[in-house]
């Protein structure tokens, strides 16, 4: 196994990538059980594909955001390791196909140089934390949910309580009551609210699509922001302990709630208080509210525009 030089500053990430390379080598030496290798690589965004011998790679983009350089980096990786085509998923990730298993560590190392991760994009982990695409600019939003989605993403990445759960876990943040992030089909869906001037969330619990869809229940009409992470941690701990693990079709959290009932589930969450790693977690939105620097002022030259089509396209009510 060609080992590449990883110029990754972050030692934890570097350890992750080198471990992936080691496990691929073990697997190809027949010394690693397929089942365990599968859960390991799924938790690193590497998914089997219909065509044999090649893999699909899912790049995790919290609330669907990329900077210019990050998008350029994704394009370089897609040309080098895949087919030069990006697929945008319905949960704001980017998928590239036909990737060789051997080259996934290298690919991951390159993405990390622009702070992009494959970590827990697939597998029985907390998947991408999504948010409405207009979060931060939506006229109807009480406040920008982006900082809160970001804090949740960072807090549960590599967190031991959600690395080997019974099934995947999906979290969404909607910008407004229009709920474009579809909270009612998520394990945990958050809708921003202001109550007596302080920020909080309406919390939807245990929704899901699939062959047996379930409408989420209202867990809290209003949950103050400092409670956001502790509540999520307690829900994850309960799901990890009581969630079904053998029968895959019955393993999503929606089936657990159907089995023991919402009240019993809430009692369990309350009993987790003591064990939580944090009793409150204050999220500071200011780094996300910096001045929008839209330089420069002069519009670059451009060909004349077909005014009829442009108006139709622009049509602002």
């Amino acid at each position, binding site marked *: 196994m060609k080992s590449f030089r990883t110029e990754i500053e972050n030692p934890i990430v570097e350890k992750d990538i080198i471990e992936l390379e080691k496990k691929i080598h073990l697997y190809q030496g027949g010394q690693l059980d397929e089942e365990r290798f599968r859960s390991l690589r799924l938790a690193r965004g590497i998914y089997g594909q*219909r065509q044999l011998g090649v893999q699909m790679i899912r790049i995790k983009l919290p609330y669907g955001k990329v900077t*210019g350089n990050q*998008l350029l980096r994704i394009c370089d990786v897609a040309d080098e390791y895949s087919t030069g085509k990006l697929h945008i998923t319905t949960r704001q990730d980017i998928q590239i196909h036909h990737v060789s298993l051997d080259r996934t560590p290298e690919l991951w190392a390159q993405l990390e140089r622009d702070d992009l991760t494959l970590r827990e994009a697939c597998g029985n982990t907390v998947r991408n934390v999504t948010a409405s695409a207009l979060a931060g600019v939506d006229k109807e939003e009480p406040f920008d949910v982006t900082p809160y989605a970001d804090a949740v993403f960072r807090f549960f990445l590599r967190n031991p309580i959600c690395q080997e759960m019974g099934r995947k876990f999906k979290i969404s943040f909607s910008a407004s009551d229009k709920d474009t992030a579809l909270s009612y089909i998520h394990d945990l869906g958050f809708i921003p609210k202001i109550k007596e001037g302080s920020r909080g969330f309406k919390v939807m619990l245990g929704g899901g699509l699939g062959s047996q869809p379930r409408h989420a229940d209202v867990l809290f009409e209003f949950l103050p922001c400092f409670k956001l992470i502790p509540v999520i941690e307690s829900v994850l701990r309960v799901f990890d302990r009581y969630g079904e693990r053998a029968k895959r079709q019955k393993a999503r959290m929606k089936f657990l709630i159907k089995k023991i009932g919402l009240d019993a589930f809430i009692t369990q969450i309350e009993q987790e208080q003591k064990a939580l790693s944090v009793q409150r977690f204050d999220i500071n939105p200011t780094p996300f509210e910096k001045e929008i620097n839209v330089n420069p002022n002069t519009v670059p030259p451009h060909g004349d525009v077909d005014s009829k089509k442009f108006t139709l396209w622009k049509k602002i009510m």
Partner: protein
Amino acid sequence: MEKNHVIPQKQEGLFALGVKIKLGDITTEKARVIAHLIKKYAANELRFSLRQNLVLRHIKEAFLPFFYQELTQLGLTDLGFNSTSDITACPGTDTCNLGIASSTGMAVELERVLTKEYPKYLENKDLTIKISGCMNACGQHNMAHIGFQGMSIKTKEKLVVPAVQILLGGGVLGNGKGRFADKIIKLPSKRSPQALRIILDDFDTHRINGESFLDYYDKKGKLHFYTLLIPLSSTTNLNEEDFIDWGNEERYVQAVGVGECAGTVIDLVTTLMLDTEEKISFAKTSFKNGKYADAIYHSYSAFVNGAKALLISEKKKTNTKAEILSQFDETFVNSQKIHLGSDFKSLVYQIKSNEPSAHFAESYSSQAVAFLEMIKKYRKKELQRAT
């Protein structure tokens, strides 16, 4: 608010831009142009949306024509961002192990129908269409106003046809509430465009004072739509088309774990034409090395593959090499569509009546070259007529 592609932001004087990306697939070439654009003129940030599109932000009004110009050059200013024609579809049989029938192929066809026959739905933001390739609903079909779920049906004669379950009545209501779509009926998937026409025509004609689709659906009830679509569901009047899934050329095979399962959408006809060219070059190399029997066999394969390419594009059976020769005569030579100077079978079966001499090898391979030119011209003419 999201009336169309330009959305005013809460930050005065700044706008967000909605860019529709068909099936969420974008080439790196286009993505790079957009990356440079946002770095310079859109606060170095964009968001991928939950409908598999792009949303740019923080754009000053004065820059809108410039952005429109740049995006148009990338072919990314089609109307219909977040509208009914902005159909959500999972990769399905393209790259997913679990895909039973093609969702991307169907999405392309339904979008074509909407753009050509129902243009007003390009601005309708309230009615969504979603397609999944199997029951796991990665394409969210069971929360759409009109949903399609890929599956397959067995006809009485035990033949397998790509099929689709039609669902109606799903949707987001807001503030944490939403609906799941009801299963209405199962149809051969090639009839989904017709099903969509029937649903939209019925809604457009009987809808009173702009009631929403969901209100109309609840009022009319499931049975009403079942009866509307029943005629499409019979599997006794299937034609050849129905046995070929969207975006495919060959007959549908439900690849259920049969060893290595099949499933890409690369155009088979073009591949066969390239293959024919390759065989002709092999013939030349063998000839140069004095291996005349090998050269003759390569030319023989060139004749057969070239004929197979045309027969496949006409959806003809090509089960054996011998059958390909007779089918080609039947389809193209006897009908005077292609003039060879003799029937195809005797042209190709010269291989049986000639010793593998240098002389025969040479004439046989030049005939193969001429044959390839002829079918290339024929195919070009056909493609021009079709589009």
